């Protein structure tokens, strides 16, 4: 169901953990709150789940004001960071717990638990205790328990943090498919930007107790509204230059035409160039904006290579080169190369 958060403030002493947060999550939407630790995202989650009462503002769920409602009456399913499975109950008892609390008839409970177990592909594990399961299986049980009672909202609090990379990636896609299938309004909390990009319909980037920007993953990645968002989401080259008459003077590159030049006032400007937009050597030759640079470090990543370079007369930059198995090895440390990019790949980062 639709979730609305309006003007939420939560102060701890003189520190505002939440400094006025507004957020709307549409029915069936997967929205991610992305932020570093201490950004207030956990406090926001607690206010929505009901474990924390905000000093100001309101939380509405499906049109109902639940700001002061206790957690048990909010009908919110939550997956905790450490799963919070009841260690003394079997998998089936864990999943049955929310139904039991709602005093559903026994036959219905059994049928729903079975359906939930099928949903997360854990048939045959019903009688096990949580500690007899692997991390990934525990995670699925927690998920099944959170959705078995048809909650109005699903909250996921960094649920993949404790899993190894391969498992994490497969579970991320699985959770997203499941969320789509059930049409569950979902709020996902994470500090992992990659995870946020993979899973979300929309991302809200939080910092210092406020939402800095909210939008679709592609928009946020291509057009961040601030230095913080540009830096936090993906890897970035933030280039400082001076704008004037539709061009920016960039050290090393010279005059570079600015995108949306008309609206750009003269003066200092910060430009974002993603590492994959910076090309080297042959690939750079046909591009309009070029410079020379020295390779400081080369990291081989399999499908690509990451280069740290120093632009002659300019700053350090990152480049990411796609690599096919038949390609020659990327330039090694100390090699001087030509760098280039297309001006349309630049994004002007708003000041402040």
């Amino acid at each position, binding site marked *: 169901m639709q979730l609305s958060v309006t003007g939420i403030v939560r102060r701890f002493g003189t520190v505002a953990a939440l400094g006025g947060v507004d957020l709307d999550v549409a029915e069936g939407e997967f929205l991610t709150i992305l932020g570093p630790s201490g950004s207030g995202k956990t406090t926001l989650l607690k206010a929505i789940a009901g474990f924390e009462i905000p000093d100001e503002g309101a939380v509405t769920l499906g049109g109902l004001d639940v700001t002061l409602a206790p957690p048990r009456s909010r009908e919110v399913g939550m997956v905790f960071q450490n799963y*919070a499975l009841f260690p003394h109950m079997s998998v089936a008892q864990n999943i049955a717990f929310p139904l039991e609390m*709602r005093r559903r008839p026994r036959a219905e409970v059994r049928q729903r638990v079975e359906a939930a177990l099928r949903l997360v592909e854990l048939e045959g594990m019903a009688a096990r205790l949580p500690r007899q399961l692997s991390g990934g299986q525990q995670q699925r049980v927690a998920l099944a328990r959170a959705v078995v009672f048809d909650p109005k909202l699903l909250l996921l609090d960094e649920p993949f943090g404790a899993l190894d990379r391969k498992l994490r990636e497969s579970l991320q896609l699985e959770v997203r498919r499941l969320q789509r299938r059930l049409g569950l309004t979902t709020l996902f909390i994470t500090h992992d930007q990659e995870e946020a990009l993979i899973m979300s319909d929309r991302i809200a980037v939080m910092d210092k107790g406020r939402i800095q920007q909210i939008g679709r993953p592609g928009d946020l990645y291509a057009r961040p509204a601030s230095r913080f968002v540009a830096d936090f989401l993906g890897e970035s080259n933030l280039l400082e230059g001076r704008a004037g008459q539709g061009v920016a003077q960039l050290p090393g590159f010279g005059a570079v035409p600015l995108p949306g030049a008309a609206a750009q006032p003269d003066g200092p400007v910060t430009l974002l160039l993603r590492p994959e937009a910076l090309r080297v050597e042959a690939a750079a030759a046909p591009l309009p904006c070029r410079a020379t640079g020295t390779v400081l470090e080369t990291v081989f990543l399999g499908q690509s290579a990451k280069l740290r370079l120093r632009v002659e007369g300019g700053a350090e930059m990152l480049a990411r080169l796609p690599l096919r198995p038949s390609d020659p090895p990327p330039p090694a440390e100390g090699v001087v190369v030509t760098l280039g990019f297309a001006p349309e790949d630049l994004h002007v980062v708003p000041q402040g």
Partner: protein
Amino acid sequence: MSSRKADPAGFAAPGHGRRVVARRREAGLLLLGLPALLLLALVFAWPVLRLLSLSVEGGTLAHFEKAALDGLYVSVLLDSLRIAALVTAICLVLAYPVAFWLSRAGRLGLAIGMFALLLPFWTSVLVRTYAWLVLLGRNGVVNRTLRDWGWTEAPLPLLHNTTGVLIGMVHVLLPYMVLPVYAALLRVDPDLTRAAEGLGAPAWRSFLRVTLPLSMPGVSAGCALVFVLSLGFFITPALLGGGHVIMISMLIEQQVREFLEWPFAAALSTVLLLATLAIYALIGRLTRGARLATS
């Protein structure tokens, strides 16, 4: 082609040699417990064994026969068990809420609570028991206050009976219940309570279904401790019971001090020890499930 590398230390030797190395390391750790173990053996295990062996001196079970057939000793033992069970139950009821509060208290609350809990340990049991004599007597503080406030007309019999013994024993033994329960409650992840509430449980159901079962290891440890300590209690029942409440430890003391009947005292001690071990095993058996599920 296979090649062998030089291995002067023999680390590539078959498993057996390595296990010897591993076992030697573990044996080294055991040495740390050795001084305490020696002391216990010398001043505890040896005298206890000597005493117990007195009970079958001369190769006869006559002392045990006397203990079993004379109704007095059986009824005193049963009385002791009953009082110990009562003390344990009262301690549990009083201690659980305190432990629960301590486990959720802030830093200041915890400091104050722990201080209050451990304060009695700084005073000897004897002094505390005499204090209860002053408080609970016919003209003691409690009875006088009740009369002054007009709540009672005749003084309540709080001393020289089971009530007095229970009050005194519970007072002494309460911390032994609070601390294990508190430790068990601390180990219950607060997220579990949150999860239960988020899934629709009112506070009391979340407590009954999650917190209480998960704290059972502490409850059973506390019960075992208090029960076993109660069974052997001497000073408090002797003073507050005023001769009307006889516990088995008092009988043993009487046999030794008044009748110099060491073998019979030893037989009673053996019975007490066996009863204690049996109850210890029983509590362990009853709560095994809880411990398994939460460990």
